[in-house]
C-alpha cells in the first residue's frame, strides 16, 4: 500500500478492508468502536482479545456470535400470554455478552426494520414467533428472511394481510413491503402496490399459523414492475430482483452499524457486495465491520446511543444490569418499548431519542443502575474506581475534562455514602450516552 491517500476515496475503497497504519490505528478506541457497534457493548475481555490480534480476526470473532441462541426458558412463559416475559428475556440477552451477541443485535435491527407491534397483534406467541424468525434468519440469506416475514402471522395481522382478499383488497402489507421493507419510496407506482396487494391476498392466521386460502385469493392476472406475478412468492422475488432492494438493505446496515443515514454511492457499492455474497447478511456485514469506513478513526461518527445501547454498554462494560423486568420498564420510559415500536417505521433514532422526558428517564435509569452497582460493589478506593469506571464505560477514549474534578470531589466527600451518587452522575453523563 503506497503512502498516497486519495482526497476522496471511492465507495468501494471505503468498503475495502481497513489496514492498520495507513488507514489509521488499530487501537483501543477503534476496537471498542467495532465491538460497541456490532454487539451494543464492550466487554473488557473481548476488547483485550480484539487488540491481541488483527482487525480481521476481531471481526471474525464478532461474526462467530451471529448464530441464534435457543431460549427454551422463555418459551415456557408464553402460555401466560404476558409479553413482559419475552421483553425481559430479550432485554437481558441484549445487555449480557454471550456467544450470540451479534445475533441479538441483528434481531434488534430487523425488529426496527420490520417494526411490528404487539399493541395491535396482541398475541405473545405470535410476537415471539416473529422474534425467533428474526433470530434464525436475520444473519443469513435476506431473501429467505423477507419471504418468511411476508407470511409471518404477526406481520399478517399487523399490516392487515389477514383482511386482504380478492373481493376486498387491503394494500397495507404490499405498501410497506415496498416502502419500508424492500425498496424505499420512489421505486414503485401506486399501480404496483395495487397489483402486489392482489397477489398477496388470501392469507389468514388460524391456530396461530399463517394459512393460504385459495378461495380468498385474487387469481386474476397481475403485473408488478412489469412482471407477471401470481402470489406472495412472486411478489417477494419481484422485490428482490428490483435494483433498489439490495441498496435498501445496504442503507439499513450502513445506518445501523456505521451511522450513515443516506449515501447513494455507498448503498450501491454495499448493495452490489450483498448480491455477490448471495444476499448473506453475515458475509456483507463482515466486510462492512472490517472496512475502512467502519474502522478509520477519521471517519468515525459518534451518535446518540439508543436506550438499549445505553443499557448494554453498562451491562457489557461494567457488568451492571437491572433486573430484566425493570430494564424493560426503563427502556420503555426512555422511548424504546421492545416489541411495541411506536409506528410501522420503527424507532427513528438519533437525536429523536432525546427530549426532556426521555432524558429524565435516562437519569432515573442511571440512578437505578447505580443502586444495583452499589448493592454488589466491593470495598475499593474511590479514586481508583472512577478511572476504572471511565475506562470500562468509555474504552479507548480519553477521560473527559471533568474527570479530574469529579475525582477530587469524590475523594473529599464521605466515600461510603457518596459512591452511589458519583456513579449516578457518571452514568448520567452525556459522554456515556454516545455510541
Amino acid at each position, binding site marked *: 500500500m503506497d503512502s498516497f491517500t486519495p482526497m476522496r476515496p471511492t465507495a468501494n475503497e471505503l468498503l475495502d478492508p481497513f489496514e492498520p497504519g495507513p488507514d489509521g490505528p488499530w487501537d483501543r478506541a477503534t476496537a471498542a468502536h467495532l465491538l460497541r457497534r456490532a454487539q451494543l457493548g464492550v466487554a473488557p475481555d473481548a476488547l483485550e482479545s480484539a487488540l491481541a490480534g488483527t482487525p480481521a480476526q476481531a471481526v471474525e470473532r464478532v461474526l462467530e456470535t451471529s448464530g441464534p441462541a435457543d431460549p427454551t426458558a422463555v418459551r415456557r412463559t408464553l402460555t401466560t400470554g404476558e409479553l413482559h416475559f419475552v421483553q425481559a428475556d430479550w432485554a437481558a440477552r441484549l445487555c449480557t455478552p454471550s456467544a450470540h451477541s451479534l445475533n441479538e443485535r441483528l434481531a434488534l435491527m430487523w425488529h426496527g426494520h420490520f417494526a411490528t407491534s404487539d399493541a395491535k397483534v396482541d398475541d405473545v406467541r405470535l410476537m415471539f414467533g416473529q422474534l425467533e424468525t428474526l433470530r434464525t434468519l436475520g444473519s443469513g440469506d435476506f431473501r429467505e428472511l423477507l419471504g418468511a416475514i411476508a407470511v409471518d402471522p404477526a406481520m399478517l395481522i399487523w399490516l392487515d394481510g389477514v383482511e386482504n382478499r380478492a373481493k376486498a383488497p387491503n394494500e397495507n402489507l404490499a405498501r410497506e413491503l415496498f416502502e419500508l421493507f424492500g425498496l424505499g419510496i420512489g421505486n414503485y407506482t401506486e399501480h404496483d402496490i395495487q397489483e402486489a396487494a392482489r397477489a398477496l391476498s388470501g392469507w389468514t392466521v388460524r391456530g396461530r399459523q399463517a394459512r393460504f386460502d385459495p378461495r380468498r385469493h385474487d387469481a386474476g392476472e397481475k403485473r408488478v414492475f412489469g412482471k407477471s406475478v401470481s402470489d406472495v412468492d412472486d411478489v417477494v422475488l419481484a422485490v428482490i430482483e428490483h435494483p433498489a432492494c439490495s441498496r435498501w438493505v445496504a442503507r439499513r446496515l450502513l445506518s445501523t452499524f456505521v451511522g450513515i443515514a443516506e449515501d447513494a454511492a455507498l448503498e450501491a457499492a454495499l448493495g452490489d457486495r450483498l448480491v455477490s455474497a448471495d444476499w448473506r447478511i453475515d458475509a456483507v456485514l463482515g466486510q462492512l465491520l472490517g472496512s475502512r469506513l467502519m474502522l478509520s478513526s477519521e471517519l468515525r461518527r459518534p*451518535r446518540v446511543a439508543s436506550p438499549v445501547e445505553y443499557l448494554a454498554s453498562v451491562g457489557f462494560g461494567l457488568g451492571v444490569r437491572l433486573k430484566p423486568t425493570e430494564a424493560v420498564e426503563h427502556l420503555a420510559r426512555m422511548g424504546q418499548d421492545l416489541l411495541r415500536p411506536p409506528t410501522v417505521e420503527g424507532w427513528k433514532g438519533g437525536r429523536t431519542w432525546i427530549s426532556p422526558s426521555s432524558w*429524565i428517564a435516562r437519569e432515573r435509569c442511571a440512578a437505578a443502575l447505580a443502586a444495583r452497582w452499589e448493592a454488589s460493589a466491593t470495598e475499593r478506593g474511590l479514586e481508583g474506581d472512577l478511572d476504572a469506571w471511565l475506562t470500562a464505560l468509555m474504552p479507548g477514549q480519553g477521560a473527559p475534562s471533568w474527570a479530574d474534578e469529579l475525582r477530587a470531589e469524590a475523594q473529599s466527600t464521605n466515600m461510603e455514602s457518596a459512591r452511589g451518587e458519583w456513579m449516578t452522575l457518571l452514568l448520567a453523563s452525556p459522554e456515556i450516552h454516545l455510541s
Partner: protein
Amino acid sequence: MNQPTRRQVLRTGALLPAGALLGSPWIRTGRAAAWPSGASDADERVLIVVQLTGGNDGLNTVLPVEQDGWYRARPTLSSVAAGRHDLEDGWALHPAMNAMASLYHEGRLGIVQGVGYPVPDRSHFHSMAIWHTGRVTHLETDNAARQDNGWLGAAAAEWTARTGRSPAAVHVGPQAPPASLIHENRPPVALDTIANFQLPKRSSRAWQARERMLAVNEGPDALTFLRQGARDARSLSERVSAAAGSTTPEGFPANSFGRRLALTSRLIRGGLGARIYSLEVGGFDTHNDQLPLHENLLRTVSNGLAALDADLQASGWSDRVVTLVFSEFGRRVHENLSRGTDHGAAGPVFLMGAPVRGGLLGQAPDIEQLERGDLPFTTDFRSIYADLQSRWLGVQPISGVPSLRVLEG
C-alpha cells in the same frame, strides 16, 4: 377595550387564590389591575384534547331514543335507554354520564354529531393517524414522503416559534404520546406523575458537579446536543414541579384518568404556560359484551371531565380552557352477535368549557340513512379543528375545510 366584559371581570385576581400564580415566568404580576388584550390574551388559552382510544360507540353514548331503528338494530344495547339523561330533540346521554348531562344543561357542553371524514377507514391505526395528522391521508394520491406532523404538534411549533415559549404541548399519561403531538420528529413532552418527572435526588455538591460536567465545551456535535438536552431536562423538571405546586386538587375521581386531569389542572393553574394538554383513555374497542365495559368507561370520562370543569370554574380558568373529546371512529349501527359492536364510521365529538357553543351541533344522525350499515359523516372533523386552530389556538388551520363554529362568538 372599554367596559370589561363579564369574562374579563372573572379573570381578574378576585377568584384566584392569593399567590397562586406568583413565581411563574409566564404570568405577569399586576394582573388584577388590567387584563392584557390582544395577542397575549389569546396566548393564555388552553386546549385539552382527550383521546378515547379504540373507537367509542357514539350511538350508545349519545342516544337517539326516539328513533325506532336504533332499538331494532340494538336489541341488547338499547337497554341503556332506561337510565338515560335527556338532552333535547330526542337525544339523550348514556346513564353513566349524569355529570356531563348537567354540563350540557348549563351550556358548557357542545356535542357535534356525525363527525368523520370521507371514505371511512376502519383500521384503528389508520383512522387514528387521520385524526392525529388532521389530514385524510388515505385519499392523498401522490406518493409523497410519509407525513408525520401531528396537528397539535404543528400548532405547538407555530406558537413556540412566534412567542419563544415552550413547552407548548404536554402529554399527561404513561404511554407514548399520541402522534398528534409530534412535529418534525421531535418527541413531545410527556409526563405521568410529578414524581417520575424528577431527576434523581442528589446532594448540592453533586448538582454542582453535574453543572460543571454539562458546561464543558469539547467533543462532537452529538455530545453538545446531549448536554443541552440534559440542561433542558433539569430546567423543565423544575418548572413542572413549581407549576404543579404541592396540593392535589380535590373532587377528582380516584382513578388514573382523574389523577391525570387533576395534574393537568395543577399545571394549567400553576402557570407552566403550555397551551395544549393531551390525555388518553383506552379500552373503547368494545367488540364483545359492550354494556358493562362501556358503562365504566363513560362514567370515568364523564365524572373526570365534570370534576375538571368544576375545578376550572372555581379557580377562574373556566373561560380560558376548552376540552375536546374525540375517538378515531364510531361503531356500526347494528350490534354484533357478541353483544358488542364492530368498527364503524362517524361518531360524536364533545367540546367542554365556557367558551364552547353549548348544545347539539352539526347534523343529527338518522338511523334510516346509513351507508353500508354505518352512519355517514355529516361534519368533517377538520372543520372542528379549523375553528379551534384559528379562533382558539391562533394558528394556521392545516386544511382548507371551512370551519364549523364550535366556539361562541
